[in-house]
């Protein structure tokens, strides 16, 4: 049960015919529990945790103050004005929804593809999804102006008014897509966490902890009958979440693509948005997990191999996004539509050229360093690259949203967009909200899906790297 940490172990080399170990340090079942629970059991978390929480909560308070001010004054405090009625709030919304997508990809799609390496990172990634969707939902939520009439978004029957939402509007599809996504993500995350919360319950020593974790674990015992139905439900949820996550960013892209604004009205938007979402989401996962594994001693569970795999995905999706940028220009030229051609010329060389080139540099050029193995396996370096990727992805949404609206069909309505101080404070504040939630999550909930990791430890529990599935005849669900 003692943790044998062997930092020299490198699991990034491929040995043909053998599977690289995903858990290092010779951790057995008990060792995994000890390792994951150590931060939670510590009477005092590391000082860095307090510092992160303090900074994050300050920014979250700024967000709260800004929202209060918004409610008192109205949406005029933002820079949104004719012709750019979709300013920072929508940019932030699309950015945060996109961030969320990596979590679902890791938890659902990689699960269906039997990618065992997901087990160490899926819990944190799913938590990230939920916190990102909370940030995302905030922006359209406060963007509706009369927030107290929010229920008009939903089909609520009225006695005489016949006041229904228009079900053919992409903005309404958004309400359903993001609402469903948030709900299903929470269900998936919580369901996956119940066995681990039960572990915490059984290790808890304080009375209040016993009560809270006892209620949250719903009386889970680890019964085999329970596990049987649990796994069935888990596969179903994964199979539901997979088309769901693709539909969400598709529908978010419809907000733009279904309109007729030049630069928006293109069929490439759905796949392009989904690829971009996964790209930015993985970058955020890496940004969060590298400091997390460092601070909380999770290096044996979130290994360099995990990080390297994620960097490979970042590079792959980055190339997809880069291809999409190129295709957009090609189609704009090939279509021969003057406004379309102008829209793209204007993106790259118009009044927002700087935003466009920040986007291209951060999203296309900079991630190319991941061709080098050193860049893929050096934690501090990859964090820097991933932060660039997220800056780039924020600017991608900015470029799409703002440049097209600034220069649409009617030259007399052309104008420049200036964000106000509240736009910027709210963007920073949303990061505060996100990091506050994530920091609290790291301390109070199981950061790593212990039950799932235990399942991929080869049986016998001694870290030898033979493939455990072949040792048993059962058609095992790998990764579960």
């Amino acid at each position, binding site marked *: *049960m003692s943790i044998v940490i062997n930092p020299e172990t490198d699991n990034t080399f491929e040995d043909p015919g053998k599977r690289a170990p995903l858990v290092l340090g010779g951790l057995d*079942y*008990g060792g995994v*529990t000890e390792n994951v629970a150590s931060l939670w059991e510590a009477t005092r978390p590391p000082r860095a945790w307090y510092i992160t929480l303090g900074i994050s909560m300050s920014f979250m308070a700024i967000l709260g103050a800004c929202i209060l001010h918004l409610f008192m004054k*109205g949406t005029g405090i933002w820079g949104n004005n004719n012709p750019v009625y979709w300013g920072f709030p929508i940019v932030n919304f699309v950015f945060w929804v996109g961030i969320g997508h990596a979590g679902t990809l890791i938890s659902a799609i990689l699960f269906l593809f039997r990618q065992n390496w997901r087990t160490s990172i899926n819990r944190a990634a799913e938590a990230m999804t939920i916190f990102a969707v909370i940030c995302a939902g905030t922006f359209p939520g406060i963007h509706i102006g*009369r927030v107290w*009439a929010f229920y008009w978004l939903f*089909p609520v029957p*009225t*006695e005489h008014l*016949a006041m*229904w*939402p228009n*079900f*053919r509007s992409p903005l*309404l*599809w958004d309400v*359903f897509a993001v*609402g*469903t996504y948030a*709900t299903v993500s929470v*269900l*998936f995350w919580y*369901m996956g966490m119940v*066995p681990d919360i*039960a*572990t915490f*319950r*059984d*290790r808890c020593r304080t009375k209040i902890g016993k009560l809270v974790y006892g209620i949250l674990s719903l*009386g*889970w*015992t*680890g019964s*085999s*009958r*329970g*596990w*049987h139905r*649990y796994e*069935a*439900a888990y596969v*179903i*949820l994964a199979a*539901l979440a997979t*088309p*769901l996550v693709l*539909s969400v960013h598709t529908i978010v892209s*419809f907000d733009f693509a279904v309109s007729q604004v030049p630069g928006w009205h293109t069929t490439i938007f759905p796949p392009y948005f989904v690829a971009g979402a996964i790209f930015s989401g993985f970058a955020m996962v890496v940004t969060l997990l590298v400091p997390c594994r460092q601070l909380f001693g999770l290096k044996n569970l979130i290994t360099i191999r995990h990080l390297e795999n994620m960097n490979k995905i970042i590079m792959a999706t980055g190339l997809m996004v880069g291809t999409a940028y190129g295709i957009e220009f090609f189609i704009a030229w090939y279509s021969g539509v003057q406004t379309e051609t102008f829209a793209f010329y204007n993106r790259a060389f118009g009044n927002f050229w700087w935003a466009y080139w920040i986007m291209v540099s951060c999203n296309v050029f900079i991630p190319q360093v991941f061709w080098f193995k050193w860049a893929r396996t050096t934690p501090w370096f990859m964090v820097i690259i991933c932060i660039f990727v997220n800056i780039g992805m924020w600017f991608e949404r900015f470029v799409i949203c703002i440049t097209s609206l600034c220069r649409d069909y009617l030259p007399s309505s052309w104008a420049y967009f200036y964000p106000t101080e509240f736009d910027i404070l709210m963007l920073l504040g949303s990061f505060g909200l996100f990091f506050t939630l994530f920091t609290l999550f790291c301390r109070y909930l199981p950061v790593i899906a*212990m*039950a*799932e990791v*235990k399942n991929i430890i080869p*049986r016998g*529990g001694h870290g030898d790297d033979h493939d455990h599935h072949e040792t048993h*005849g*059962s058609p*095992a*669900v790998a990764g*579960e």
Partner: protein
Amino acid sequence: MADHNKKKTESDHPVSRLVGLLAQFDDPDSLIHAGTHAREAGYKKMDAFTPFPLHGIDEAIGIRRTWLPFFVLAIGLSACAFGLFLQYYSNAGDWSPIFPGYAFMISGKPLFSLPANIPVAFEITVLSSAFAAFFGMWALNRLPRLANPLHRISRFRRATNDRFFLLLEAGDEKYDSSRSRQQLEEWGATAIEECNEDLTDREFPKVLKMAGLILVFLLMIPPVLIFRASGGTSRAPRLHFMPDMDWQDKYKSQVLAPDFDDSVKHTGLFADGRAMRVPLPGTIALGKLENDTEYHRGFLPPQSSYTGELPVLGEKLAGQFNLQDEKPEGTAEGAAAVQEGAAAPQDPNAPPEPNWVTEFPANVPVSRELVERGRQRFEIYCSACHGYNGNGGGLINQHAMALAVNGQAAWTAAKSLHDPTITVQPVGRIFDTMTNGRNTMGPYKSQIPIADRWAIVLYVKALQETGITPAVIAPVEGAPETTPATKPAE
């Protein structure tokens, strides 16, 4: 079965109930082997407890496949149908008598077009299926469960960590305390323990019950207060929880601008503090020229003086911000005073009476329909005072007269339209009375459009011709010269 397992105290109250034998195994493979042995030995009621889903245990202890997927499928399909129906119901028509839908006409497209309705139907399907999978799974597992005798065994805490357990339930036919224990030892258990359910403290704690009741009661107070504040009667203005843009800092036409900025007082859009420019003198709004004096004012165009006054009139009107004033300046009131002679002495300075039209203007089509229209309008606007038959017996007049007799109100009786001073009035004069008012009668030009005013004039003339009973309307040629009809009512 449970009865013979109950341990009896002296008072014959069962204190605990035997659940079964819990055996601990140190690695997953020995648990699977033990499970296989137990199944082969004929045990049916047993369960294994593992820190992670152990593959191979289902076959070992004989767990049947769950039917959860079919449940989810059924819910998903129903939800898809519901999603499509919801959109059809609410967007494609308003045929429902209660909670009616609304036929959304968008760019002339069909009211229901499947492609545009797929996203919402899909999301509803996924959401409902996810709920079905999540809640269905917990329901099938009989969870959440607040208390479980297994959790009283300290050893069992490692079931969620690194140990594997097999529970042979006491309810099983094959169960025999000593023999089962022996078998478990043979199968490789590292520890065996009896699991007992404590039956003495199964009651829900009374303190919690009370606390819950009090909490529910307290939680009901805020909504009640809100309901009272927003629904009850009160002398003070109601609490305004949602301002809903009722107070806005904005410019309004022809009003001093609000102080957006306290440091600068009355900063209008313009130097004079206004938010709107004053029209130039003589400005007449588009379509408001109203140069047909006979039709718009009820008198013949003056031969000399009036033509010259138009610009002056415009200027005056512009100064009052009332461009629609049709009143021939300074004439009506004075003329009224003259006409109502008995009430007001003749003012020698009053301008001369205008040349009232005696025939209906050319663009007033005198017809039965117009009389009917006039009747309708008369009954809406005039009958309250003048009465349905024009004799001044309207309800308001009656009531006000009653008050005036008691000295509780000052009131000038509404004229009977059959009064000889009225019956001789030319149509233009009646039109002017309606337009600008007379004595205590207010002007109706803002309520009644010109065409309707002429219709009322026509009806009034018809009333005067037919006596006091309006039920039968004689065909009127439009001029008062026609012989008076003498048909009494009915």
